[in-house]
């Protein structure tokens, strides 16, 4: 199945070109970075890759399924903790990675069933997801003390879980990947998830998900059950966020309840908004830009990072509500077409955005 099946021909070409360009850039980064960056740079980029995947999760569920999850951090945290607890108990990291994907998906399936089949309106879904992430934060935060342990893993409450073993090749526990290896795993996973999400969106399932975002009543009246599609999209996004949490735990070898916190859910919404709602590249780009901004603010302490984020958020809502990627794409295509001597046909901002 290709994304061009039912797409306006011009936009389809552009979209395919955009997809290939993103893929090429991703692969170039994947293999190029270990040879051009020092260890620290690579570690830094591994962190960016984990957060970019978190951005993808929010970008998918919000931008394509139209589900306003204000508590996506809940799934990031569940994924990270599931990985940490499982790997500390099992040693080999293969099953723990699957746990990091499965546990958030299971949780999302239950929560989603509760919300979507309970006919809870969109705004309230935002409130409930946010509240659920607050509840998880408070519960995990209150697990200090050695009585709170799952097998060999002490949950550690506010302190979190330090010294989490890194990923290893399947079947070789005790030989954790080095910095390069974790980079390949993280960036490779990011590219894979991007490709998979593209395929999902190009499939019939994906088209219906987008159609439901556009008009839930109409989708119902032609025989689709919006509750089911939203639930599935919500669950898929939770799995992606869980994998991001697993990578995040690998990146620092450490996880604490702050991954469940409101600032984390806030950041990921800002990634999507800045990068571009309704795109997959945008949230990844937004993640890198915003994260770089936070880190720079911290080491300079010139501009308070909250103040910076707040201004960025208000500025984008008021001035660039569609986000960077759609704007940049529109501009670049227009430039290319002008250079090629063609007039820019039709509206392309929204179509190329997908």
């Amino acid at each position, binding site marked *: 199945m290709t994304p061009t099946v039912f797409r306006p021909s011009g936009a389809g070409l552009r979209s395919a070109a955009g997809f290939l360009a993103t893929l090429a850039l991703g692969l170039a980064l994947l293999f190029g970075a270990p040879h051009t960056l020092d260890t620290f740079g690579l570690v830094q980029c591994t962190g960016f890759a984990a957060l970019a995947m978190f951005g993808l999760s929010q970008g998918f569920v919000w931008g394509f399924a139209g589900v306003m999850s204000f508590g996506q951090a809940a799934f990031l945290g569940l994924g990270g903790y599931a990985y940490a607890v499982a790997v500390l108990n099992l040693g080999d990291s293969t099953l723990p990675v699957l746990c990091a994907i499965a546990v958030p998906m299971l949780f999302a399936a239950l929560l989603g069933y509760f919300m979507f089949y309970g006919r809870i309106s969109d705004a309230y879904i935002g409130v409930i997801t946010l509240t659920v992430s607050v509840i998880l934060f408070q519960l995990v935060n209150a697990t200090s003390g050695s009585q709170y342990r799952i097998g060999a893993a002490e949950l550690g409450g506010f302190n979190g879980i330090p010294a989490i073993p890194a990923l290893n090749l399947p079947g070789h526990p005790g030989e954790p990947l080095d910095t390069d290896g974790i980079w390949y795993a993280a960036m490779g996973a990011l590219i894979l998830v991007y490709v998979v999400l593209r395929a999902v969106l190009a499939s019939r399932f994906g088209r219906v998900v987008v159609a439901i975002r556009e008009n839930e009543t109409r989708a119902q009246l032609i025989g689709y059950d919006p509750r089911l599609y939203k639930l599935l999209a919500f669950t898929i996004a939770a799995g992606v966020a869980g994998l991001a949490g697993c990578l995040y735990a690998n990146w620092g070898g450490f996880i604490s309840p702050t991954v469940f916190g409101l600032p984390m859910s806030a950041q990921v919404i800002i990634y999507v908004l800045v990068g571009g709602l309704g795109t997959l590249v945008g949230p990844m780009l937004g993640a890198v830009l915003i994260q770089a901004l936070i880190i720079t603010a911290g080491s300079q302490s010139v501009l308070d990072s909250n103040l910076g984020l707040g201004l960025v958020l208000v*500025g984008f809502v008021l001035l660039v509500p569609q986000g960077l990627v759609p704007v940049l794409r529109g501009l670049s295509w227009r430039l290319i077409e002008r250079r090629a001597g063609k007039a820019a046909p039709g509206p392309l901002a929204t179509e190329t955005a997908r």
Partner: protein
Amino acid sequence: MDLAGLLAFNVLTGIATLVLITLGLGVIYGMMRIINLAHGEFMMLGAYTAVMASGAGVNIWIAMLVLPPLVVGVIGLVLERTVIRFLYGRMMDTMLATWGVSLGLIGLVTTLYGNVVRGVSTPVGSFDIGRYGASLYSLVIMATALGALAAMFGLLRFTKFGLILRATMQNPRMAAALGVQPNRIYMATFALGAALAGLAGGILAPISGVSPAMGAAYVARAFITVLGGGPAIITGTGLASGLFGTINELVSFKTTPVIGDVALLAAAILLIRLLPQGITGRYLRRSL
């Protein structure tokens, strides 16, 4: 039972606190369908106003009860004119924008005053319930909460402004046809909500640490209490605060404040699932 008396007193204090932190959010949400995520920061600004004013030698009661609503009301007015008014009818965007405002205010106050916890001392003493001590200040909180509810009721029920507000709430186009500018009404409503948040911040300043990030502790609770209460601002806020405040205080006493908070939030989620329109959306629909 002295202990029961103390517990009942605490429950009432908890309810009153919830009423205070919720009312401003409820006014803005009820009238304008805007979920104001900067609500906690409006409270924070109110608390800072109280701390600054009392530090500058202003009478403590004026510093706590009069100045914060005025100052924060004006700030709310300015924000409405510069940010919010461009986003009417776009619920998600207003949520995001007010979130941006919230982060920005935290950052701004941190930059201006530093990330320092400040405080003002409680202006009244304590009294005994049997052999237990309790703070007289809790009575001040209860009185303020009751006063705020009564004032809101009076405003909505008996004034022309209240009538216009209710009309706009029912049908903005109808109100416009009657010669009322909905924009003016929204502006005033937002300022009113901000002022109520400022009042809550001012009155709670003496018992909680005042710091730039203090608002975060309140916003989730306020938010979910508003939704639990439903469309009738006063009755809804009162009933939901009563329900959630009781659950919170009793569970906290039996276990820990964390479990108390979790119980509050979980109860609220259940309530919203069972009554998506809130308590007053299902019952008491004709109330204010």
